[in-house]
């Protein structure tokens, strides 16, 4: 009987018992009501009372026993665990039925349980953040024990494969020392992000201005769903589009003006990522521009300005903090984007200013390090967590700054 079966037996025993508890509890309350006693709560609550008081002790016991077992403190055979829990369930069923008396405040008791249940659910949601941060930090610490932080930040060569060779026992004169200088990787990431923002910011911002200031209702109702579809396209699809369609186009275009471009150039993923971020920027900017009070526009028109003058001299300066934070959110999304760069950007770290050469990004290296066959404790695998930590810190910072700015901005115009 393995743990999966144990779970099935446990639930198979508990669920019928719990249903029985509900009906027995309610029945007892109904009987007492029929005998002329005045109940504190509706009969159903006595059922739920019996239900919860029966389920919680055995579940708690099983969680405690199972975690002690996993921690290796005691050895509990699954059979014993199931038997112990079901016995406890039967005992608590009897006890809870005994507790049901007309004066019992069943509703308040049940409410308390529900409150705890809701709290537990929110605690789980929070544990996710803590879990992400801790799991990445722990593995990253392991990585930085092998590779110095200074070398990681300032080094200009990234060649983890040598680490694999030395791990395989081929440490000879010819095997180079593995190097984990992340500078070229971050340079590639920022280059691609920069190109993406060059596409996304003008197109996104200007279409947001058109939608909120100029467009008629019909145009808005046509354009909005189109942008939403653009936003809903999976990134792997954009990646395919970039690798199969855009990349050859870029290479041909470069050739026609006498330049040489690699098929894994940085320009292609940058352009496609820009298209991906357009709807993101435009919907955020649209939201920001719409939150500027109408009175500001009217004040400006009253002075005899044209629409574009109002937009340029009044609305945009007023919306600037919000729009800048929208851009920052766009940047954080571009930094963490994976599939487009995995499919269309290069694998080789390359420190260059030329966007027509192949470059790699943080996310590409993470995917590459973790989808190989290397052991989990090798420096190459762990390097993914070092890069992941850097990515997490940068995106978290961008998000926090921009959410604070946007909130302040909106508060400013609220009455």
């Amino acid at each position, binding site marked *: 009987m393995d743990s999966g079966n144990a779970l099935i037996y446990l639930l198979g025993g508990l669920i019928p018992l719990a249903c029985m508890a509900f009906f027995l509890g309610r029945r007892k309350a109904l009987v007492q009501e029929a005998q002329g006693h005045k109940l504190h709560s509706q009969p159903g609550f006595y059922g739920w009372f019996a239900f919860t008081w029966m389920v919680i002790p055995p579940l708690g016991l099983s969680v405690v026993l199972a975690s002690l077992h996993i921690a290796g403190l005691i050895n509990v055979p699954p059979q014993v665990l199931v038997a112990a829990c079901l016995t406890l369930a039967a005992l608590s069923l009897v006890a809870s039925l005994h507790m049901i008396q007309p004066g019992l405040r069943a509703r308040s008791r049940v409410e308390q349980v529900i409150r705890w249940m809701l709290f537990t659910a929110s605690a789980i949601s929070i544990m996710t953040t803590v879990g992400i941060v801790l799991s990445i930090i722990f593995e990253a610490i392991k990585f930085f024990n092998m590779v110095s932080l200074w070398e990681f930040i300032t080094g200009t060569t990234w060649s983890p494969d040598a680490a694999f060779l030395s791990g395989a026992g081929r440490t000879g004169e010819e095997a180079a020392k593995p190097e984990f200088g992340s500078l070229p990787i971050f340079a590639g990431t920022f280059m691609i992000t920069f190109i993406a923002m060059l596409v996304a910011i003008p197109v996104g911002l*200007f279409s947001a201005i058109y939608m909120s200031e100029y467009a008629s209702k019909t145009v808005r109702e046509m354009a909005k769903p189109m942008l939403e579809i653009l936003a809903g396209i999976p990134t792997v699809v954009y990646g395919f589009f970039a690798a199969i369609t855009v990349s050859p186009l870029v290479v041909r275009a470069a050739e026609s003006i006498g330049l040489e471009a690699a098929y894994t150039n940085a320009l292609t993923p940058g352009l496609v990522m820009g298209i991906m971020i357009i709807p993101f920027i435009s919907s955020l900017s649209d939201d920001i521009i719409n939150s500027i009070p109408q009175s500001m526009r009217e004040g400006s028109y009253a002075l005899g300005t044209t629409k574009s*003058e109002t937009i340029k001299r009044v609305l945009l300066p007023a919306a600037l903090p919000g729009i800048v934070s929208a851009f920052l959110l766009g940047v954080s999304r571009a930094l963490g984007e*994976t599939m487009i760069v995995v499919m269309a950007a290069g694998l080789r770290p390359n420190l260059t200013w030329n966007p027509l050469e192949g470059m790699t990004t943080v996310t590409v290296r993470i995917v590459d390090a973790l989808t190989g066959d290397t052991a989990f404790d090798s420096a190459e695998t762990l390097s993914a967590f070092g890069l992941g930590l850097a990515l997490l810190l940068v995106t978290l910072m961008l998000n926090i700054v921009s959410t604070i700015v946007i909130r302040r901005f909106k508060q400013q115009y609220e009455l």
Partner: protein
Amino acid sequence: MSPKQPLDRNGLKLMRRRYRKEKRFQVYCLTALILACLFLVLFLGDIIAKGHSAFKQAQIKVEVTYTERSKEIPLTAVEREYTSILSRGWFRTLPQRLNTHPELLGTSETHWIVAKGDVDQYLKGKPNSLKPEEKELVDQLKAENRTRFIFNTYFFLNGDSRMPEIAGIKAAAIGTIYVLFLTMIFSFPIGVLTAIYLEEYAPDNWLTRIIEVNINNLAAIPSILYGLLGLAIFINTFGIPRSSALVGGLTLGLMSLPVIIISARAAIRAVPDSIREAAFGVGSSRWQVVLHHVLPLSLPGILTGSIIALAQAMGETAPLLIVGMMAFIPDAPDGFTDAATVMPAQIYTWSSAALRPYAERTAAAILVLLAVLITMNATAVLLRKKYERRW
């Protein structure tokens, strides 16, 4: 100075310049919007142009002779010159077919057999790697009317395969259903319960505020980091099998949790307080207010948000690559701990395959995925339009 002074020449000039500027600015803005929509049209047009031909498949009519020998070496069932242009996938099924239908032995019949991927591409006029003599043979067969195109059922009824002509999306589609089922089972209840707690129960203190900030930040963390979490915690700590539907579902569940929480909170907040106060007024407890009034009224909004979150999870690839769901998996999973693959991961593996015929199938798989996603999003929008109440 008279009160009605006409504009002088300079004033008129300035006025015209300002109006020209206004016109120009408007054109810039419109161009941007048109550009954004043009991208969408170009993009969809490109995928459709690449993918639509994968829905039909070439077959070739040949004489098949069933002998004892063809049971052991299936390729001998047809004339030797045809073996290089027919799908090996068909021959593989031959011994089994002869075992179930022994009466076929010793007979021969003309049969439409699936052509090899490259032949299929050649007949569709696409780039291929056929040799000149094979091209000649195919041309000759075509002239004799022994080639035809039929609807590509393999694409929907088969799993992945090393032979592009019989590779299909069935395993990936079933894997997607498994993974999304787990994602919903996990994230919908916890997400809605968290939203209820935060909106209806939580006191306004520092802890609640930290939780709020946390959830908003979670929604903006790059998805690949959820993959790292899944790898470090679910696979390495809890020992859930790599590339199983379970680990994929849990990872995507964590990823869609904040999206569900945020949209459910918005929906719950939209229910006016007067409803709660009326229910409290007739003696309801807090949970009764929530269960009998707030939840039913906010359910359409919650469902809309959840469908959108689900659609997002369905298109997600990066975290699943990290937890190993990109392996070559030809069969649909039998359980939650079996190795599985999902549609986006299948698209990814096909798009990086070296054989040319896969490109067409990648685009076709993308079309199927996009059709499902757009349907889901449209359902969400319709649901919102139909049941949305303005208080």
